[in-house]
């Protein structure tokens, strides 16, 4: 080394260099941002916007506010316990008569029907009268309008329908979210539990967690020894066996569910084998109950447990275990006190992954379970597709989403590390 190279080249520390360095850095930063832009835009469009829309739909309540503005105003001072004023009857007929299209009446009817069963036919028959005969010959006084409505349908004398209208005049409502945890707003605005025969979602949520917990535990008990065994094998054999784990993972979920139906049915392979071995005297019921759901969900989700476990176990040096044994620890104690603690991140990641995937399960319980084994997603699908009550579907979706986020937060707290998926 020559002495000359040790002296600083000319220009270091000069303002020009610092500037050009800053410029280069900021250019690089902007390039990096520009490169991630497509991904950010993609996330925004495919994830954040739909989730935002879902959250909005869960609290949106436009039907009554949009179609019954006059009625809302007429009911503003009503005490909700005595009969509504005659002016409200007149306002309702005027509102219905002014609806621009029938679809609005239909939406209103659906909304009120989900509050009070029967609201649909009541609103639709009144709507038809309001745009038909009543429009041609309007009644002179509010009292006459009221009389006419009661003649059309005596249910207009019942308070629940009016209470439902009065309750829903605002554009936003917590009702869907409250229903999804079995609560409701009383007439006077206080909270109460819904009637026992309509109490269902808290139990379903509990059931969803219960099934997911059992499946996670079963996956761990089956997956841990297998992953351990795989991690101790030479790479060549491990790869071959890994394919055995992965092939079912790549098979369509419906195919696997159908296969379980064939295996588990009353005269299926499992029952036939057990019968011929005289283990049981009568075929077991393995299908359309909790057993079928748990068996097949465990099978489907097992790879999600094995893969993170395997990748963590591969990084645990076997010498630690050997060192513990050579220092006098019994092998089993060494395994649980030296080896298992080093695989905590794998257990955490696998467990969380399996649990979160299972709480959203839909197809498997729908096909293999009875009505008592359906999880929350089944009811989301029911409200989306069958009842077309999207507010309720979104509220249940929100509950599921928050449950997932809470779980993830707890996981971060407990494990104090980022989720590693191997």
């Amino acid at each position, binding site marked *: 080394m020559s002495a000359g190279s040790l002296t600083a080249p000319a220009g270091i520390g000069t303002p020009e260099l610092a500037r050009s360095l800053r410029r280069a850095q900021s250019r690089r930063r902007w390039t990096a941002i520009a490169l991630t832009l497509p991904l950010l835009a993609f996330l925004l469009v495919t994830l954040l916007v739909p989730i935002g829309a879902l959250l909005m739909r869960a609290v949106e309540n436009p039907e009554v506010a949009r179609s019954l503005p006059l009625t809302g105003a007429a009911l503003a001072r009503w005490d909700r316990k005595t009969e509504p004023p005659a002016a409200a009857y007149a306002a309702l007929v005027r509102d219905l008569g002014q609806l621009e299209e029938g679809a609005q009446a239909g939406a209103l009817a659906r909304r009120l029907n989900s509050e009070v*069963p029967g609201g649909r036919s009541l609103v*639709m028959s009144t709507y038809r009268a309001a745009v038909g005969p009543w429009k041609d010959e309007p009644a002179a006084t509010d009292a006459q309008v009221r009389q006419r409505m009661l003649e059309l349908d005596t249910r207009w004398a019942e308070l629940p329908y009016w209470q439902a209208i009065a309750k829903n005049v605002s554009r936003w409502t917590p009702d869907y979210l409250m229903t999804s945890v079995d609560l409701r707003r009383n007439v006077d605005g206080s909270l109460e539990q819904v009637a026992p025969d309509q109490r269902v979602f808290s139990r379903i949520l509990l059931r969803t967690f219960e099934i997911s917990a059992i499946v996670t535990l079963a996956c761990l008990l089956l997956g841990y020894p297998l992953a351990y065994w795989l991690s101790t094998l030479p790479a060549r054999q491990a790869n071959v066996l890994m394919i055995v784990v992965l092939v079912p993972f790549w098979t369509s979920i419906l195919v696997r569910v159908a296969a379980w139906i064939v295996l588990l049915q009353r005269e299926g392979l499992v029952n036939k084998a057990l019968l011929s071995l005289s283990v049981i005297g009568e075929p077991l019921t393995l299908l359309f109950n909790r057993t079928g759901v748990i068996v097949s969900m465990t099978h489907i989700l097992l790879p999600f447990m094995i893969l993170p476990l395997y990748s963590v176990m591969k990084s645990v040096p076997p010498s630690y275990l050997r060192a513990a044994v050579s220092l006098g620890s019994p092998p089993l104690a060494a395994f649980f006190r030296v080896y298992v603690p080093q695989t905590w991140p794998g257990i955490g990641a696998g467990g969380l992954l399996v649990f979160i995937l299972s709480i959203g399960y839909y197809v498997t319980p729908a096909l293999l379970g009875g009505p008592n084994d359906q999880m929350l997603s089944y009811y989301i699908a029911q409200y989306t597709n069958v009842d077309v009550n999207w507010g309720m579907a979104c509220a249940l979706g929100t509950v599921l989403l928050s449950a997932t986020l809470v779980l993830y937060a707890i996981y971060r707290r407990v494990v104090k590390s980022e989720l590693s998926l191997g």
Partner: protein
Amino acid sequence: MKKTPLIALIAAVVALPALAQSQLTVVNFGGANANAQKKAYYEPFEKATGTKVVSVEYNGEQAKVKAMVEAKNVTWDIVEVESPDIGRGCDEGLFEKLDYAKIGNKADFAPKSAVTDCGVGIFVWSTVMAYNGDKLKDAPKTWADFWDVKKFPGKRAMRKGARYNLEFALLADGVKVEDVYKVLATPAGADRAFKKLTELKPNIQWWEAGAQPPQFLVAGDVVMATAYNGRIDAAAREGKNLKINWNNQIYDMEYFGIVKGSPNRDTAYKFLAVALGADGQAEYAKNIAYGPTNTKAMAKLDAKTLANLPTAPANAAGGLEFNIKFWADQGEALEKRFASWATQ
């Protein structure tokens, strides 16, 4: 030379809308029902008009129709819709109001509820009691027999949900056919139905898809089942000894509706005229055991086909017509109550 494929492609893209004019998208429920529709409706229509029918399957999700109409991007023209949904969809503006002059003579259709504002009934189907003739020597006769686990030990298959089951429970509890919906509309009646259903609960194996009850019966999982009559008939045609007890069947209709804003409305009407004509209706009933709604089709059917239809006089006696209005009003609350009941 190199540009030719590109030009051809552009020409094809430009021509696409023109092609779309000469095809009609009809949405059905798939399975044996779709095959019968293809033979009876689609093929004769294609032959008569030269318009291609694109058959799409769905599972009755009105959410798809609603999304299409709301987005004003209607790609379905005619949709097969279940009875509770046609009235609901009509109220909410998902379907076009029908002009019956373009379809046929209103007076030819029966039952009366086949003619509605937005949907025209295409066939009558029913939910019946079915059993395996090989396993049950002594035929069950009433819904009380269905509930009698001492006389007929074994499981029963029932549809997962409140619909039909509550009606059958009341019938089993001794309510007369004509009073079923009157009783069910009262809170005490609904309690009574659920209480009766609770009696049978340990012996019920629930089904979700129409194809399941015949499978359960053949596999011996259950001794009796509620089932769609066409599915049992299809299994019987394959040589399985499955039998139907028509007593107190619940009959219902399936409708065709034109999706609001369909670009092919005129073609759709031509299709409806073919499908609801006496020939189309008779041909359909020959392919699957569902009853025609066009009364003129009955004369074109032989006695053997007639005997298997829900609309045959011998089968229809004692039948209960599914009450659309009742279920449109009470359905959501009763289904929720069913979900709650199932968890107890």
